């Protein structure tokens, strides 16, 4: 049984304007870590808030644990949410913050201490119980927010970009904490982010949203290797997939598949002439920016991503034209008008 399910969920804020969320139907599996990924304005946060009950949908249904919760208040849905700012109650200490949901649900007072200790123990904040939120570091606040969320045994955890307020250094360790937390607790988690690296690292599945519509729901590997449309193709992966228009279709290939002809990957080789413009040496790999030469692709900007260990060494002469190639197995084809993935076709190249 799906833990969280949405059916044709739509939210329009203003009559006549484009919907923030349009006809989204998805299901989570039990114990799954589902990431809602998209740029700002894609509707991912609105979607999350509707699942939480903080926004009322314009149309569609939401089911949690098989039960239709569309008309229920957040309180009645047995969900827990971690906000972007963590929303810890500043006037309460850590213990009272974690105990607050228990108080609100009228859990008998004798049980509070045991549950708070259990949650705090799991997250390693047992010695912080007397502190106030303002005395805590960013990482500690996240743990308190998680403890407060888990203390009532919710059916699903909802997280709204919790890492975006942390500095880069902290983000990696905080990310790891969330992942191991979810694994140990085993509860379904729906996680919103705009960071595609985060999404791919953490998610069991990713739902990529763009302008209120879900473009693809798949495992990170599937979404990366078999993107459903050009948006997903260019949003996942950095640097983004190279896209060229040719023969009435859009052809794409990832920078890591664009290599010197001598070191090309197995498969039917498609040759290109590549004039190097800019070299970015990043240690384990080098990013090359340049332009295609010859025929209809003249002047088209492309990016190559080569490991340091590549056979024949990394090309580094600016303005020199090199012979590059892409294996036809690594080509992806998209319909020119709808931008949706289509079948591969044999192409004529010059």
């Amino acid at each position, binding site marked *: 049984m799906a833990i969280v399910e949405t059916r044709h969920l739509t939210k329009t804020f203003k009559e006549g304007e484009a919907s923030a969320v349009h006809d989204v139907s998805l299901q989570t599996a039990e114990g799954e870590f589902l990431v809602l990924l998209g740029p700002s304005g894609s509707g991912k946060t609105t979607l999350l808030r509707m699942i939480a009950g903080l926004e009322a949908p314009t149309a569609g249904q939401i089911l949690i644990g098989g039960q239709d919760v569309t*008309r229920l*208040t957040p309180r009645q849905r047995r969900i827990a949410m971690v906000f972007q700012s963590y929303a810890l109650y*500043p006037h309460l200490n850590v213990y009272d913050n974690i105990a607050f949901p228990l108080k609100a649900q009228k859990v008998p007072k004798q049980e509070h201490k045991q549950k708070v200790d259990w949650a705090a123990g799991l997250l390693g904040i047992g010695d912080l119980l007397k502190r106030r939120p*303002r005395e805590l570091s960013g990482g500690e606040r996240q743990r308190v927010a998680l403890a407060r969320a888990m203390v009532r045994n919710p059916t699903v955890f909802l997280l709204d970009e919790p890492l975006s307020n942390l500095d880069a250094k902290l983000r990696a360790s905080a990310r790891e904490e969330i992942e191991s937390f979810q694994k140990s607790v085993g509860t379904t988690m729906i996680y919103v982010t705009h960071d595609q690296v985060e999404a791919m690292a953490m998610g069991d599945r990713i739902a990529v949203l763009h302008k209120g519509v879900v473009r693809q729901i798949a495992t990170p590997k599937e979404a990366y290797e078999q993107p459903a449309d050009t948006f997903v193709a260019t949003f996942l992966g950095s640097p983004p997939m190279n896209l060229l228009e040719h023969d009435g279709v859009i052809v794409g290939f990832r920078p890591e598949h664009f290599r010197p002809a001598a070191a090309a990957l197995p498969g039917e080789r498609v040759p290109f002439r590549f004039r190097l413009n800019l070299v970015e040496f990043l240690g384990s790999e080098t990013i090359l920016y340049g332009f295609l030469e010859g025929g209809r692709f003249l002047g088209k900007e492309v990016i190559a991503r080569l490991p340091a260990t590549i056979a024949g060494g990394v090309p580094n002469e600016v303005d020199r034209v090199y012979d590059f190639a892409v294996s036809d197995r690594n080509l992806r084809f998209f319909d020119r008008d709808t931008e949706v993935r289509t079948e591969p076709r044999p192409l004529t190249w010059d």
Partner: protein
Amino acid sequence: MIARLTHRFGSTIARALTVVVFCILLAFPFYWMFITTFKQSPDLYDLQNNPFIFNAKPTLSHLQYLFDQTHFVRWGLNTAMVGILVTIITLLLAVPAAYALTRLTGRWGSRLGIGIFLTYLVPPTLLFIPLSRIVAELGLQNTLWSLVVVYPSFTVPFSVWLLMGFFKSIPRDLEDAAMVDGLSRFGAFLKLVVPISTSGILTVVIFTFTLVGQEFVYALTFISSDSNQMLQVGVPIFLVRGDVYYWGSLMAACLIASVPIAIVYNLFLDRFIAGFTVGAVK
């Protein structure tokens, strides 16, 4: 669903009711001033008549009396003059002081800032007796100059505090860039900071004027004669003949002296709030 809808509906009703009740309670006296101003005296003083409506035709006679037969206009001019002079003095004292306190002095800055703020806690009703003596010694009793000299004592602290909030929001980088380009610190202040802060300065002007127009104790204490008085003292004290209050003209005077200020004040309120709450709620 029903529960949610009725809850929303109920709270909207409750809220609307609360707002309406408070609006009536707070604004009613001004409506009353308005009605009284234009009601004919016989109508006004007839206990049998419904007081909320005009039982006879509205009249301008009270207004006429006010402007022709009392010192109302004179008081208005007095207040305006004092307002202008006090505003100028306040700006000259407060603008540099606020700037210096935000930018130039380190530890002292906060101490002096607190000091200035504490002076606000010393009320006119504590100082007015010694000040009346000082004013007499200076030969300023019963003149508007006494007020011009004394009023900045409460407009300056208030303005310094307001402006400090303003200046704090101007990034230091702007002035640093100007100084790298060759301006002195004071030059940067005059040519860069002051022009940027026109809205803050304007706010100070408005609030200083309203503070001048509202002050009662000093004006009552220092000025004794009818014609030298300020509006806010003249109206309640001198628009009386013997024991008889000419309520029609009195209310007319109140109305004229209150409502325009209120309109202007509202336009500037948001700035006031912004200055007030920076740092107050963390």
